Protein backbone atom coordinates (compact mmCIF):
# COMPACT_ATOMS: atom_id res chain seq x y z
CA UNK A 1 0.00 0.00 0.00
CA UNK A 2 1.41 3.42 -0.93
CA UNK A 3 1.94 6.02 1.78
CA UNK A 4 -0.80 8.54 2.48
CA UNK A 5 -0.13 12.21 3.09
CA UNK A 6 -2.95 14.20 4.64
CA UNK A 7 -3.74 17.69 3.40
CA UNK A 8 -2.31 17.15 -0.07
CA UNK A 9 -3.76 16.28 -3.43
CA UNK A 10 -2.05 12.98 -4.12
CA UNK A 11 -1.46 11.41 -7.50
CA UNK A 12 -2.50 7.86 -6.46
CA UNK A 13 -5.86 9.22 -5.26
CA UNK A 14 -6.35 11.18 -8.51
CA UNK A 15 -5.47 8.12 -10.57
CA UNK A 16 -7.93 6.01 -8.56
CA UNK A 17 -10.74 8.54 -9.07
CA UNK A 18 -9.88 8.86 -12.75
CA UNK A 19 -9.85 5.05 -13.17
CA UNK A 20 -13.21 4.80 -11.44
CA UNK A 21 -14.64 7.23 -14.00
CA UNK A 22 -13.01 5.28 -16.80
CA UNK A 23 -14.43 2.01 -15.45
CA UNK A 24 -17.94 3.47 -15.40
CA UNK A 25 -17.40 4.96 -18.87
CA UNK A 26 -16.50 1.52 -20.26
CA UNK A 27 -20.04 0.41 -19.48
CA UNK A 28 -21.72 3.45 -21.04
CA UNK A 29 -19.34 4.67 -23.73
CA UNK A 30 -21.71 3.96 -26.59
CA UNK A 31 -24.63 6.04 -25.33
CA UNK A 32 -22.48 8.82 -23.94
CA UNK A 33 -20.33 9.08 -27.03
CA UNK A 34 -23.34 9.00 -29.33
CA UNK A 35 -24.98 11.90 -27.51
CA UNK A 36 -21.79 13.91 -27.16
CA UNK A 37 -20.82 13.64 -30.83
CA UNK A 38 -24.05 13.42 -32.75
CA UNK A 39 -25.74 16.40 -31.10
CA UNK A 40 -23.11 19.03 -32.02
CA UNK A 41 -22.72 17.51 -35.46
CA UNK A 42 -26.47 17.82 -36.08
CA UNK A 43 -26.36 21.39 -34.76
CA UNK A 44 -23.46 22.12 -37.08
CA UNK A 45 -25.21 20.68 -40.08
CA UNK A 46 -28.52 22.37 -39.29
CA UNK A 47 -26.98 25.79 -38.76
CA UNK A 48 -24.44 25.33 -41.51
CA UNK A 49 -26.97 24.34 -44.14
CA UNK A 50 -29.81 26.44 -42.76
CA UNK A 51 -28.10 29.76 -42.16
CA UNK A 52 -25.50 28.90 -44.74
CA UNK A 53 -28.13 29.65 -47.38
CA UNK A 54 -28.59 33.14 -45.94
CA UNK A 55 -25.03 33.88 -44.87
CA UNK A 56 -22.39 32.66 -47.26
CA UNK A 57 -19.35 33.78 -45.26
CA UNK A 58 -18.26 35.72 -42.20
CA UNK A 59 -15.02 37.71 -42.32
CA UNK A 60 -14.08 35.70 -45.39
CA UNK A 61 -14.73 32.33 -43.72
CA UNK A 62 -17.43 30.08 -45.25
CA UNK A 63 -20.29 30.00 -42.76
CA UNK A 64 -20.29 26.21 -42.23
CA UNK A 65 -16.59 26.37 -41.40
CA UNK A 66 -17.26 29.30 -39.07
CA UNK A 67 -19.91 27.28 -37.26
CA UNK A 68 -17.85 24.09 -37.42
CA UNK A 69 -15.01 25.66 -35.48
CA UNK A 70 -17.48 27.23 -33.05
CA UNK A 71 -19.28 23.93 -32.51
CA UNK A 72 -16.07 22.48 -31.07
CA UNK A 73 -16.63 24.70 -28.05
CA UNK A 74 -20.30 23.79 -27.66
CA UNK A 75 -19.44 20.07 -27.87
CA UNK A 76 -16.91 20.55 -25.09
CA UNK A 77 -19.35 22.63 -23.02
CA UNK A 78 -22.24 20.19 -23.23
CA UNK A 79 -20.15 17.07 -22.79
CA UNK A 80 -18.35 18.40 -19.72
CA UNK A 81 -20.94 20.44 -17.88
CA UNK A 82 -23.97 18.14 -18.27
CA UNK A 83 -22.04 14.97 -17.41
CA UNK A 84 -20.57 16.64 -14.35
CA UNK A 85 -23.90 18.07 -13.19
CA UNK A 86 -26.00 14.95 -13.51
CA UNK A 87 -23.33 12.43 -12.52
CA UNK A 88 -22.22 14.37 -9.47
CA UNK A 89 -25.76 14.84 -8.18
CA UNK A 90 -26.51 11.16 -8.80
CA UNK A 91 -23.38 10.04 -7.00
CA UNK A 92 -23.93 12.38 -4.07
CA UNK A 93 -27.66 12.27 -3.49
CA UNK A 94 -28.93 9.01 -4.91
CA UNK A 95 -26.13 6.47 -5.29
CA UNK A 96 -24.08 7.95 -2.41
CA UNK A 97 -20.90 6.63 -3.95
CA UNK A 98 -19.07 9.77 -2.79
CA UNK A 99 -19.70 8.64 0.77
CA UNK A 100 -18.07 5.32 -0.08
CA UNK A 101 -15.10 7.05 -1.70
CA UNK A 102 -14.62 9.39 1.25
CA UNK A 103 -14.44 6.43 3.62
CA UNK A 104 -11.24 5.52 1.72
CA UNK A 105 -8.12 7.71 1.90
CA UNK A 106 -9.51 10.13 -0.67
CA UNK A 107 -10.51 13.74 0.03
CA UNK A 108 -13.13 15.95 -1.59
CA UNK A 109 -10.55 18.01 -3.50
CA UNK A 110 -9.14 14.80 -4.97
CA UNK A 111 -12.58 13.62 -6.07
CA UNK A 112 -13.35 16.97 -7.72
CA UNK A 113 -9.93 17.13 -9.38
CA UNK A 114 -9.94 13.52 -10.59
CA UNK A 115 -13.45 13.71 -12.01
CA UNK A 116 -12.85 17.10 -13.65
CA UNK A 117 -9.69 15.77 -15.27
CA UNK A 118 -11.51 12.75 -16.64
CA UNK A 119 -14.54 14.65 -17.90
CA UNK A 120 -12.34 17.42 -19.28
CA UNK A 121 -10.19 14.94 -21.17
CA UNK A 122 -13.23 13.20 -22.57
CA UNK A 123 -14.86 16.49 -23.54
CA UNK A 124 -11.67 17.63 -25.26
CA UNK A 125 -11.68 14.51 -27.40
CA UNK A 126 -15.40 14.77 -28.18
CA UNK A 127 -14.84 18.37 -29.23
CA UNK A 128 -12.80 17.22 -32.20
CA UNK A 129 -15.85 15.62 -33.87
CA UNK A 130 -17.37 18.85 -35.28
CA UNK A 131 -13.96 19.79 -36.60
CA UNK A 132 -13.75 16.50 -38.50
CA UNK A 133 -17.18 17.15 -40.00
CA UNK A 134 -16.07 20.66 -40.98
CA UNK A 135 -13.16 19.08 -42.87
CA UNK A 136 -15.75 17.38 -45.07
CA UNK A 137 -17.14 20.82 -45.86
CA UNK A 138 -13.87 22.24 -47.02
CA UNK A 139 -12.13 23.28 -43.80
CA UNK A 140 -8.43 23.06 -44.55
CA UNK A 141 -6.32 21.11 -42.00
CA UNK A 142 -3.70 23.33 -40.37
CA UNK A 143 -0.76 22.27 -38.15
CA UNK A 144 -2.08 24.43 -35.29
CA UNK A 145 -5.22 22.32 -35.19
CA UNK A 146 -3.33 19.68 -33.20
CA UNK A 147 -3.80 22.13 -30.33
CA UNK A 148 -7.60 21.90 -30.54
CA UNK A 149 -7.92 18.82 -28.28
CA UNK A 150 -5.64 20.52 -25.75
CA UNK A 151 -7.81 23.63 -25.79
CA UNK A 152 -10.84 21.37 -25.46
CA UNK A 153 -9.34 19.58 -22.46
CA UNK A 154 -8.52 22.85 -20.63
CA UNK A 155 -12.01 24.20 -21.37
CA UNK A 156 -13.59 20.87 -20.47
CA UNK A 157 -11.84 20.71 -17.09
CA UNK A 158 -13.23 24.14 -16.26
CA UNK A 159 -16.77 23.29 -17.33
CA UNK A 160 -16.67 19.90 -15.59
CA UNK A 161 -15.70 21.66 -12.36
CA UNK A 162 -18.42 24.23 -12.97
CA UNK A 163 -20.92 21.39 -13.42
CA UNK A 164 -19.80 19.83 -10.13
CA UNK A 165 -20.29 23.19 -8.44
CA UNK A 166 -23.81 23.43 -9.83
CA UNK A 167 -24.50 19.85 -8.68
CA UNK A 168 -23.35 20.73 -5.18
CA UNK A 169 -25.75 23.66 -5.03
CA UNK A 170 -28.95 21.76 -5.84
CA UNK A 171 -30.82 19.02 -4.04
CA UNK A 172 -32.78 17.53 -6.94
CA UNK A 173 -32.52 17.32 -10.72
CA UNK A 174 -35.26 19.95 -10.97
CA UNK A 175 -32.85 22.46 -9.50
CA UNK A 176 -30.82 22.28 -12.71
CA UNK A 177 -33.57 24.15 -14.57
CA UNK A 178 -32.27 27.44 -13.18
CA UNK A 179 -28.73 26.62 -14.16
CA UNK A 180 -29.51 25.38 -17.66
CA UNK A 181 -31.80 28.28 -18.59
CA UNK A 182 -30.08 30.99 -16.59
CA UNK A 183 -26.42 30.18 -17.08
CA UNK A 184 -25.63 27.55 -19.70
CA UNK A 185 -27.93 28.79 -22.45
CA UNK A 186 -26.59 32.38 -22.29
CA UNK A 187 -23.02 31.04 -22.20
CA UNK A 188 -23.75 28.95 -25.26
CA UNK A 189 -25.39 31.77 -27.22
CA UNK A 190 -23.04 34.63 -26.36
CA UNK A 191 -19.78 32.96 -27.30
CA UNK A 192 -19.47 33.79 -30.97
CA UNK A 193 -20.33 30.25 -31.96
CA UNK A 194 -23.05 30.97 -34.49
CA UNK A 195 -22.56 34.66 -35.16
CA UNK A 196 -19.58 37.00 -34.84
CA UNK A 197 -19.58 39.07 -31.68
CA UNK A 198 -17.64 41.94 -33.26
CA UNK A 199 -20.87 43.07 -34.93
CA UNK A 200 -22.77 43.06 -31.63
CA UNK A 201 -23.18 46.05 -29.26
CA UNK A 202 -20.11 46.97 -27.27
CA UNK A 203 -21.68 45.95 -23.95
CA UNK A 204 -22.31 42.46 -25.30
CA UNK A 205 -18.76 42.20 -26.56
CA UNK A 206 -17.51 43.24 -23.13
CA UNK A 207 -19.77 40.70 -21.46
CA UNK A 208 -18.47 37.97 -23.78
CA UNK A 209 -14.98 38.51 -22.37
CA UNK A 210 -16.28 36.98 -19.15
CA UNK A 211 -17.60 33.95 -20.99
CA UNK A 212 -15.02 31.12 -20.98
CA UNK A 213 -16.69 29.56 -23.98
CA UNK A 214 -15.93 32.68 -26.00
CA UNK A 215 -12.21 32.25 -25.28
CA UNK A 216 -12.41 28.62 -26.33
CA UNK A 217 -14.17 29.58 -29.60
CA UNK A 218 -11.58 32.23 -30.35
CA UNK A 219 -8.67 29.87 -29.72
CA UNK A 220 -10.14 27.12 -31.91
CA UNK A 221 -10.81 29.60 -34.74
CA UNK A 222 -7.28 30.93 -34.49
CA UNK A 223 -5.94 27.39 -34.73
CA UNK A 224 -7.99 26.93 -37.90
CA UNK A 225 -7.59 30.32 -39.55
CA UNK A 226 -4.38 31.78 -38.16
CA UNK A 227 -2.85 32.15 -34.71
CA UNK A 228 -2.60 35.51 -32.96
CA UNK A 229 0.00 34.68 -30.26
CA UNK A 230 -0.59 37.68 -27.97
CA UNK A 231 -4.37 37.40 -28.04
CA UNK A 232 -4.21 33.61 -27.80
CA UNK A 233 -2.14 33.74 -24.64
CA UNK A 234 -4.82 35.98 -23.12
CA UNK A 235 -7.53 33.53 -24.18
CA UNK A 236 -5.60 30.58 -22.76
CA UNK A 237 -4.96 32.49 -19.54
CA UNK A 238 -8.69 33.25 -19.26
CA UNK A 239 -9.53 29.54 -19.69
CA UNK A 240 -6.97 28.50 -17.09
CA UNK A 241 -8.23 31.14 -14.64
CA UNK A 242 -11.80 29.96 -15.22
CA UNK A 243 -10.80 26.35 -14.55
CA UNK A 244 -9.09 27.30 -11.29
CA UNK A 245 -12.04 29.39 -10.04
CA UNK A 246 -14.59 26.72 -11.04
CA UNK A 247 -12.49 24.02 -9.35
CA UNK A 248 -12.27 26.05 -6.15
CA UNK A 249 -16.03 26.65 -6.12
CA UNK A 250 -16.72 22.96 -6.78
CA UNK A 251 -14.43 21.82 -3.95
CA UNK A 252 -15.90 24.39 -1.55
CA UNK A 253 -19.54 23.50 -2.13
CA UNK A 254 -19.03 19.74 -2.54
CA UNK A 255 -17.11 19.61 0.73
CA UNK A 256 -19.94 21.50 2.45
CA UNK A 257 -22.39 18.90 1.13
CA UNK A 258 -20.39 15.79 1.94
CA UNK A 259 -18.61 16.61 5.18
CA UNK A 260 -21.30 17.32 7.77
Amino acid sequence: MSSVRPGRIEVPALVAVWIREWTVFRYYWRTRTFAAIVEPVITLLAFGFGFGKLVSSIDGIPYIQFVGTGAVATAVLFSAVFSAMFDALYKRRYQRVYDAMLAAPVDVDEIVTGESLFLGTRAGLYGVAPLLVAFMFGLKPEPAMVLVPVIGVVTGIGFAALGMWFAAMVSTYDGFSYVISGVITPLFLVAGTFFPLNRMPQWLQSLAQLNPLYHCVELVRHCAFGLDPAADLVHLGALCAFAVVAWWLAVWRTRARLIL
Partner: protein
Amino acid sequence: MSLHGVVKRFGDVRAVDGLELRVPAGVCYGLLGPNGAGKSTTMRILTGQALADEGSVVVLGHRLPAESKLARARMGVCPQDSNLDVDLGVRDVLEVFARLYRVGPPERAAAVDRALALAGLEHRSGDRAVTLSGGMQRRLLIARALIHQPEVVLLDEPTVGLDPQIRQELWSLIVGLRDGGATVLMSTHYIEEAERLADRVAIMSAGRVVAEGTPAELILAHAGSEVVDVHGSAAQLAELRSRADADGLPTRHSGPALTYLRADSLDGRLPAGLRRSATLEDVFVRLTGDYVE
Protein backbone atom coordinates in the same frame (compact mmCIF):
# COMPACT_ATOMS: atom_id res chain seq x y z
CA MET B 1 -10.27 4.23 18.93
CA SER B 2 -11.18 6.80 21.52
CA LEU B 3 -13.75 9.58 21.56
CA HIS B 4 -13.69 12.04 24.42
CA GLY B 5 -16.41 14.61 25.13
CA VAL B 6 -17.59 14.50 21.51
CA VAL B 7 -20.51 16.74 20.59
CA LYS B 8 -22.08 16.97 17.13
CA ARG B 9 -24.96 19.35 16.50
CA PHE B 10 -27.25 19.56 13.47
CA GLY B 11 -29.01 22.87 14.00
CA ASP B 12 -30.70 22.63 17.38
CA VAL B 13 -30.38 18.84 17.52
CA ARG B 14 -27.45 17.38 19.44
CA ALA B 15 -27.01 14.10 17.53
CA VAL B 16 -23.98 13.23 19.64
CA ASP B 17 -23.93 14.78 23.06
CA GLY B 18 -20.78 14.41 25.13
CA LEU B 19 -19.85 10.97 23.85
CA GLU B 20 -17.16 9.05 25.76
CA LEU B 21 -16.05 5.87 24.05
CA ARG B 22 -12.90 3.79 24.05
CA VAL B 23 -12.65 0.75 21.79
CA PRO B 24 -9.75 -1.58 22.66
CA ALA B 25 -7.75 -3.15 19.84
CA GLY B 26 -8.64 -6.63 18.62
CA VAL B 27 -12.20 -6.84 19.94
CA CYS B 28 -15.61 -6.85 18.38
CA TYR B 29 -17.28 -3.83 19.95
CA GLY B 30 -21.02 -3.34 19.72
CA LEU B 31 -22.58 0.08 19.62
CA LEU B 32 -26.14 -0.58 20.58
CA GLY B 33 -28.91 1.95 20.57
CA PRO B 34 -32.34 2.77 19.21
CA ASN B 35 -32.78 4.70 15.96
CA GLY B 36 -31.68 8.28 16.48
CA ALA B 37 -29.30 7.41 19.33
CA GLY B 38 -26.34 8.84 17.41
CA LYS B 39 -24.70 5.62 16.24
CA SER B 40 -24.47 6.50 12.55
CA THR B 41 -23.27 10.02 13.32
CA THR B 42 -20.56 8.50 15.53
CA MET B 43 -19.56 6.27 12.61
CA ARG B 44 -19.39 9.29 10.30
CA ILE B 45 -17.22 11.15 12.80
CA LEU B 46 -14.83 8.20 12.87
CA THR B 47 -14.47 8.28 9.08
CA GLY B 48 -14.05 12.06 8.94
CA GLN B 49 -17.37 12.52 7.14
CA ALA B 50 -18.80 14.45 10.06
CA LEU B 51 -16.77 16.94 12.05
CA ALA B 52 -17.24 16.99 15.81
CA ASP B 53 -18.18 20.41 17.17
CA GLU B 54 -16.48 19.62 20.49
CA GLY B 55 -14.24 16.93 21.90
CA SER B 56 -11.39 14.84 20.60
CA VAL B 57 -11.28 11.77 18.40
CA VAL B 58 -8.28 9.47 17.95
CA VAL B 59 -8.25 6.46 15.63
CA LEU B 60 -5.23 4.15 15.45
CA GLY B 61 -3.14 6.92 16.95
CA HIS B 62 -4.28 9.52 14.41
CA ARG B 63 -6.07 12.65 15.60
CA LEU B 64 -9.22 13.42 13.64
CA PRO B 65 -10.12 15.30 11.56
CA ALA B 66 -6.57 16.53 10.78
CA GLU B 67 -5.18 13.03 10.22
CA SER B 68 -8.37 11.38 9.13
CA LYS B 69 -6.90 10.39 5.77
CA LEU B 70 -4.19 8.37 7.52
CA ALA B 71 -6.79 6.68 9.70
CA ARG B 72 -9.08 5.95 6.74
CA ALA B 73 -6.23 4.17 4.94
CA ARG B 74 -6.20 1.66 7.80
CA MET B 75 -9.97 1.36 8.21
CA GLY B 76 -12.69 -0.38 6.28
CA VAL B 77 -16.26 0.86 6.36
CA CYS B 78 -19.52 -0.92 5.60
CA PRO B 79 -22.34 1.65 5.67
CA GLN B 80 -25.91 1.15 6.80
CA ASP B 81 -27.36 2.08 3.40
CA SER B 82 -25.83 0.58 0.30
CA ASN B 83 -23.59 2.95 -1.62
CA LEU B 84 -22.35 0.46 -4.16
CA ASP B 85 -21.54 1.38 -7.72
CA VAL B 86 -24.39 -0.93 -8.68
CA ASP B 87 -23.96 -0.43 -12.41
CA LEU B 88 -20.44 -1.84 -12.32
CA GLY B 89 -19.47 -5.47 -12.36
CA VAL B 90 -18.71 -7.10 -9.01
CA ARG B 91 -15.01 -7.45 -9.81
CA ASP B 92 -14.83 -3.86 -11.09
CA VAL B 93 -16.33 -2.58 -7.83
CA LEU B 94 -13.57 -4.29 -5.89
CA GLU B 95 -10.80 -3.25 -8.27
CA VAL B 96 -11.88 0.40 -8.11
CA PHE B 97 -11.83 0.34 -4.32
CA ALA B 98 -8.53 -1.53 -4.24
CA ARG B 99 -7.09 1.48 -6.04
CA LEU B 100 -8.88 3.97 -3.80
CA TYR B 101 -7.43 2.14 -0.78
CA ARG B 102 -3.97 2.29 -2.37
CA VAL B 103 -3.49 -1.45 -2.79
CA GLY B 104 -0.40 -1.63 -5.02
CA PRO B 105 -0.45 -3.21 -8.48
CA PRO B 106 1.43 -6.39 -7.46
CA GLU B 107 -1.13 -7.24 -4.76
CA ARG B 108 -4.28 -5.84 -6.38
CA ALA B 109 -5.51 -8.92 -8.26
CA ALA B 110 -4.87 -11.15 -5.25
CA ALA B 111 -6.69 -8.68 -2.98
CA VAL B 112 -9.72 -8.72 -5.27
CA ASP B 113 -9.70 -12.53 -5.43
CA ARG B 114 -9.43 -12.75 -1.66
CA ALA B 115 -12.32 -10.30 -1.18
CA LEU B 116 -14.46 -12.22 -3.67
CA ALA B 117 -13.76 -15.47 -1.83
CA LEU B 118 -14.53 -13.85 1.53
CA ALA B 119 -17.89 -12.69 0.22
CA GLY B 120 -18.55 -16.00 -1.55
CA LEU B 121 -19.07 -14.14 -4.80
CA GLU B 122 -16.46 -15.74 -7.04
CA HIS B 123 -19.15 -17.19 -9.28
CA ARG B 124 -20.78 -13.74 -9.69
CA SER B 125 -17.59 -11.73 -10.26
CA GLY B 126 -18.52 -10.87 -13.84
CA ASP B 127 -22.10 -9.86 -13.08
CA ARG B 128 -23.24 -6.33 -12.46
CA ALA B 129 -23.73 -5.54 -8.78
CA VAL B 130 -27.30 -4.46 -9.46
CA THR B 131 -28.20 -8.06 -10.36
CA LEU B 132 -27.13 -9.40 -6.95
CA SER B 133 -29.64 -10.18 -4.22
CA GLY B 134 -29.82 -7.89 -1.19
CA GLY B 135 -27.76 -10.31 0.86
CA MET B 136 -25.10 -10.62 -1.84
CA GLN B 137 -24.91 -6.83 -2.19
CA ARG B 138 -24.39 -6.58 1.55
CA ARG B 139 -21.61 -9.18 1.36
CA LEU B 140 -20.05 -7.22 -1.51
CA LEU B 141 -20.16 -4.06 0.63
CA ILE B 142 -18.30 -5.89 3.38
CA ALA B 143 -15.82 -7.37 0.91
CA ARG B 144 -15.23 -3.86 -0.45
CA ALA B 145 -14.51 -2.63 3.07
CA LEU B 146 -11.98 -5.43 3.59
CA ILE B 147 -10.18 -5.19 0.25
CA HIS B 148 -7.07 -3.63 1.86
CA GLN B 149 -7.10 -5.86 4.98
CA PRO B 150 -7.83 -3.02 7.39
CA GLU B 151 -6.86 -3.02 11.04
CA VAL B 152 -10.20 -1.48 12.02
CA VAL B 153 -13.54 -2.34 10.47
CA LEU B 154 -16.60 -0.13 10.99
CA LEU B 155 -19.88 -1.92 10.33
CA ASP B 156 -22.92 0.34 10.51
CA GLU B 157 -26.01 -1.85 10.99
CA PRO B 158 -24.41 -4.63 8.92
CA THR B 159 -27.38 -6.99 8.85
CA VAL B 160 -30.34 -4.63 8.79
CA GLY B 161 -33.13 -5.88 6.56
CA LEU B 162 -31.51 -9.22 5.78
CA ASP B 163 -32.96 -12.72 5.96
CA PRO B 164 -31.96 -14.77 9.03
CA GLN B 165 -29.84 -17.11 6.93
CA ILE B 166 -27.85 -14.25 5.43
CA ARG B 167 -27.53 -12.67 8.85
CA GLN B 168 -25.99 -15.88 10.22
CA GLU B 169 -23.49 -15.91 7.36
CA LEU B 170 -22.48 -12.34 8.06
CA TRP B 171 -22.14 -13.07 11.75
CA SER B 172 -19.66 -15.83 10.91
CA LEU B 173 -17.79 -13.39 8.71
CA ILE B 174 -17.63 -10.78 11.47
CA VAL B 175 -16.39 -13.31 14.04
CA GLY B 176 -13.77 -14.39 11.50
CA LEU B 177 -12.59 -10.80 11.16
CA ARG B 178 -12.22 -10.39 14.90
CA ASP B 179 -10.45 -13.75 15.20
CA GLY B 180 -8.12 -12.63 12.43
CA GLY B 181 -6.94 -9.73 14.60
CA ALA B 182 -9.05 -6.85 13.29
CA THR B 183 -10.84 -4.45 15.61
CA VAL B 184 -14.52 -4.42 14.70
CA LEU B 185 -16.83 -1.58 15.71
CA MET B 186 -20.36 -2.60 14.85
CA SER B 187 -23.40 -0.43 15.36
CA THR B 188 -26.67 -2.26 15.58
CA HIS B 189 -30.09 -2.03 17.03
CA TYR B 190 -30.45 -5.83 16.94
CA ILE B 191 -29.81 -6.84 20.52
CA GLU B 192 -29.30 -10.49 19.66
CA GLU B 193 -26.57 -9.46 17.24
CA ALA B 194 -24.70 -7.49 19.87
CA GLU B 195 -25.19 -10.22 22.46
CA ARG B 196 -23.82 -12.93 20.17
CA LEU B 197 -20.98 -11.09 18.50
CA ALA B 198 -19.72 -8.30 20.68
CA ASP B 199 -16.97 -8.77 23.24
CA ARG B 200 -17.96 -5.42 24.71
CA VAL B 201 -21.05 -3.31 24.21
CA ALA B 202 -21.78 0.38 24.64
CA ILE B 203 -25.45 1.27 24.88
CA MET B 204 -26.17 4.69 23.39
CA SER B 205 -29.17 6.85 24.02
CA ALA B 206 -29.72 10.47 23.03
CA GLY B 207 -26.18 10.85 21.72
CA ARG B 208 -24.27 9.49 24.68
CA VAL B 209 -23.15 6.19 26.17
CA VAL B 210 -25.41 5.22 29.05
CA ALA B 211 -23.76 1.87 29.85
CA GLU B 212 -20.65 -0.01 28.80
CA GLY B 213 -19.20 -3.43 29.45
CA THR B 214 -19.32 -7.05 28.35
CA PRO B 215 -22.86 -8.28 27.67
CA ALA B 216 -22.69 -10.42 30.83
CA GLU B 217 -21.50 -7.46 32.93
CA LEU B 218 -24.24 -5.22 31.57
CA ILE B 219 -26.94 -7.81 32.23
CA LEU B 220 -25.77 -8.44 35.77
CA ALA B 221 -25.35 -4.75 36.56
CA HIS B 222 -28.66 -3.51 35.17
CA ALA B 223 -31.08 -6.48 35.17
CA GLY B 224 -29.65 -9.01 37.61
CA SER B 225 -29.39 -12.68 36.76
CA GLU B 226 -33.12 -13.36 36.57
CA VAL B 227 -36.29 -11.47 35.66
CA VAL B 228 -40.00 -12.20 35.98
CA ASP B 229 -42.51 -11.56 33.18
CA VAL B 230 -46.03 -10.84 34.42
CA HIS B 231 -48.74 -11.04 31.79
CA GLY B 232 -52.08 -9.25 32.04
CA SER B 233 -54.41 -6.75 30.47
CA ALA B 234 -53.16 -3.26 29.68
CA ALA B 235 -55.01 -1.88 32.69
CA GLN B 236 -53.56 -4.52 35.00
CA LEU B 237 -50.05 -3.92 33.72
CA ALA B 238 -50.44 -0.15 34.14
CA GLU B 239 -51.51 -0.65 37.74
CA LEU B 240 -48.63 -3.06 38.39
CA ARG B 241 -46.22 -0.59 36.84
CA SER B 242 -47.32 2.32 38.97
CA ARG B 243 -47.16 0.13 42.09
CA ALA B 244 -43.66 -1.07 41.14
CA ASP B 245 -42.52 2.51 40.58
CA ALA B 246 -43.89 3.49 43.98
CA ASP B 247 -42.07 0.53 45.60
CA GLY B 248 -38.86 1.31 43.74
CA LEU B 249 -38.88 -1.98 41.81
CA PRO B 250 -37.10 -1.87 38.44
CA THR B 251 -39.41 -2.84 35.57
CA ARG B 252 -39.74 -2.51 31.85
CA HIS B 253 -42.51 -3.06 29.35
CA SER B 254 -42.14 -6.25 27.35
CA GLY B 255 -44.99 -6.33 24.83
CA PRO B 256 -48.04 -7.83 26.58
CA ALA B 257 -46.11 -8.26 29.83
CA LEU B 258 -44.41 -6.24 32.51
CA THR B 259 -40.90 -7.46 33.27
CA TYR B 260 -39.54 -7.17 36.78
CA LEU B 261 -35.75 -6.88 36.69
CA ARG B 262 -33.37 -8.18 39.40
CA ALA B 263 -35.92 -10.85 40.32
CA ASP B 264 -33.18 -12.89 42.01
CA SER B 265 -32.82 -10.25 44.71
CA LEU B 266 -36.49 -9.38 45.06
CA ASP B 267 -38.01 -12.73 46.05
CA GLY B 268 -41.26 -12.35 47.94
CA ARG B 269 -41.88 -8.84 46.65
CA LEU B 270 -42.90 -9.77 43.10
CA PRO B 271 -46.27 -10.92 41.73
CA ALA B 272 -46.47 -14.40 40.22
CA GLY B 273 -45.09 -14.67 36.72
CA LEU B 274 -42.75 -16.44 34.36
CA ARG B 275 -39.19 -16.49 35.70
CA ARG B 276 -36.39 -16.49 33.12
CA SER B 277 -32.75 -15.47 32.69
CA ALA B 278 -32.16 -11.75 32.16
CA THR B 279 -31.07 -10.71 28.68
CA LEU B 280 -29.35 -7.76 27.09
CA GLU B 281 -32.74 -6.71 25.74
CA ASP B 282 -33.94 -6.21 29.33
CA VAL B 283 -30.96 -3.92 29.89
CA PHE B 284 -31.41 -2.12 26.60
CA VAL B 285 -35.07 -1.26 27.10
CA ARG B 286 -34.52 -0.38 30.74
CA LEU B 287 -31.75 2.08 29.82
CA THR B 288 -33.06 3.57 26.59
CA GLY B 289 -36.74 3.77 27.49
CA ASP B 290 -39.86 1.78 26.67
CA TYR B 291 -40.74 3.87 23.67
CA VAL B 292 -38.74 5.51 20.89
CA GLU B 293 -39.75 8.37 18.64
